[in-house]
């Protein structure tokens, strides 16, 4: 096991940021911690990177205890904090060289590991980091976190605020890194990114809702799920809220994801109900659950 977390709790004054969290990440896995802002993701990252002490529980990273062996952990992990944390007034190359130096290595020594990512920003190596675009900043930050060949890579919300194109490229890079036997522990508020992880933990309000593979998470959804659509979306949401067979109704793109509260539900009943409420162009058909459906079902 690369990361072991046992019954970790952490409070700030009255606020319980983490409430009895346990999880395990095998070596070489791409593990996703999925949840909204304020769920406790950053707190868990800071505990695992030895920046915070937990109030209760124990944890280890590559066999080192996060409290006792914090120095060893600091030598073996790479960490990319939530906000862009590089020196804006240093150039791309200076930033990379600085992080190589403080980890006692050189760019040349581990160039192989970052080549794939770094070549994309190398043309701008003399540009100040502050003047890079969001996607490029993120690639530079990843290069800096990787330059000392860490065994475990901690990425706290690396894709937040980044556009979908850069996000997709970033995940492709992570997939390739995984082939280098690096354990990657990554957090994100975007549910659609969860599908790319080996295993994911859904977290909200300091509690873990479920840990499973993305497929397992979807399969655990306990209800049938239907896509519903009509011309008047706002009225549709309101009417579905008032419908007696509704368990939940949430907008998903141009459709509403509707789950019934009874197994006896029939689509024609709903269609009939909507017609009675003056909806037109009604569509109702069964669909498969997404991770987001499960997240909402579990956190409700």
């Amino acid at each position, binding site marked *: 096991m690369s990361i072991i977390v046992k019954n970790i709790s952490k409070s700030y004054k009255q606020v319980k940021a983490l409430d009895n969290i346990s999880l395990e990440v095998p070596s070489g896995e791409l593990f996703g911690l999925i949840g909204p802002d304020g769920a406790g993701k950053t707190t868990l990252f800071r505990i695992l990177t*030895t*920046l915070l002490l937990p109030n209760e529980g124990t944890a280890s990273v590559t066999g080192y205890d996060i409290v006792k062996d914090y120095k060893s952990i600091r030598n073996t992990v790479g960490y990319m904090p939530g906000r862009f944390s590089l020196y804006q*007034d240093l150039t791309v190359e200076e930033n990379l060289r600085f992080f190589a130096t403080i980890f006692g290595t050189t760019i040349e020594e581990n160039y192989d590991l970052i080549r794939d990512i770094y070549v994309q920003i190398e043309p701008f190596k003399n540009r100040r980091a502050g003047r890079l675009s969001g996607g490029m900043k993120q690639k530079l930050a990843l290069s*800096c976190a990787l330059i000392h060949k860490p065994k475990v890579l901690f990425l706290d919300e690396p894709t937040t605020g980044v556009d979908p194109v850069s996000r997709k490229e970033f995940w492709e890079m992570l997939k390739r890194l995984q082939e280098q036997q690096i354990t990657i522990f990554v957090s994100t508020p975007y549910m659609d990114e969860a599908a790319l992880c080996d295993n994911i933990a859904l977290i909200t309000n300091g509690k873990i809702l479920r840990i499973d593979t993305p497929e397992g998470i979807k399969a655990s959804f306990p209800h049938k799920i239907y896509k519903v659509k009509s011309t008047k979306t706002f009225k549709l949401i309101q009417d579905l809220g008032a419908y007696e067979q509704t368990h939940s109704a949430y907008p998903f793109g141009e459709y509403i994801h509707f789950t019934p509260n009874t197994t006896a539900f029939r689509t024609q009943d709903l269609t009939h109900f909507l017609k009675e409420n003056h909806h037109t162009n009604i569509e109702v058909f069964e669909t498969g659950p997404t991770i987001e459906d499960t997240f909402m079902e579990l956190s409700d």
Partner: protein
Amino acid sequence: MKRFIGFIQKEFYHILRDRRSLFILFGMPIAQVLLFGFAITNEINNVDIAILDHSKDATTKEIIAKIAASEYFSIKQIIPNEAAIEPAFKKGHIKAVLNFEKDFSKKLITENKATLQILTDATDPNTANTISNYTSSILKNYQQDLNKAAQTSYKIEPKVRLAFNPELKSVFMFVPGVMTVILMLVSAMMTSISITREKELGTMEILLVSPLKPFQVIIGKVVPYILLAVVNAVVIILLSLFVFKMPVEGSLFLLGAESILFIINALSLGILISTLARTQQTAMMVSLMGLMLPVILLSGFIFPISSMPLPLQIISNIIPAKWFIIIIKGIMLKGVGLDFIWKETLILIGMTLFFIAISIKKYKIRLE
């Protein structure tokens, strides 16, 4: 060691690329020394005064002649009696009235004591203070001459205050003060800001999660500023030597060593501030309000400590700048050696060790 050098190199990039701060860092000492040297001066020149002479004897005439001869005063008016003093002031032309008592000469010879009242316009307290100082010193000189001529040589007057600044140049008094302020500012404020900036940017998190030891981070932050502060000290001393022709009476080596001691003292204060402050803004406010104001107001730089109320006099003892000003005034103006200022030096060393000890104790290897 390579890590450490890499770190210092990075710090220099930060400093050299921040043009505005760099300009302030090096422009400020020059501007301040010139400002204090030329503009904000305590010197007086041809101040208009009036004379009220109740005796009109040989001695008073001699004194009046001496005052009239000095470049500091010009006698505008001879006042006949006390009643005319107030109107004279109210007209606003004169800044002071010298009131010689009756039988001045006689009293001086028979009782060895005669009184000269110096009335000054205290709406401008600084000038008033200076005028009274100047007149007293002219009187003292006259008295000395008198003693020399009339008495035998065994009566020796103690050296008066002006002896260390015989030309009464206020810039000589200001240079040590300005140097103290600048060194405090560069060392304490700049280091505390540069450390809190890393906290604010989030880079401190990465530095903590690296093999770099916390004390290496701190020392790496401090080293560049020691160099900068030394450069500043040298610039100030050169300016005072060549622009204001101010002599450094004592050992330059001692002056340098004491300056470095004070710089380290200020740096340790800067580190202490940065362990307590989370943002650059707080660090700056704390440095300005908590360090700069006391340095300017309570160190004896502008206001003499002896004229402060007792509570402030006591507080002034915990301000490192007070001791440093005593030390450098001693070295620069009096030419004293370590044997005269060892006490102040020890106090500074003690304070420095104390600040470093708290900083180390307060320094966090984690985020909270």
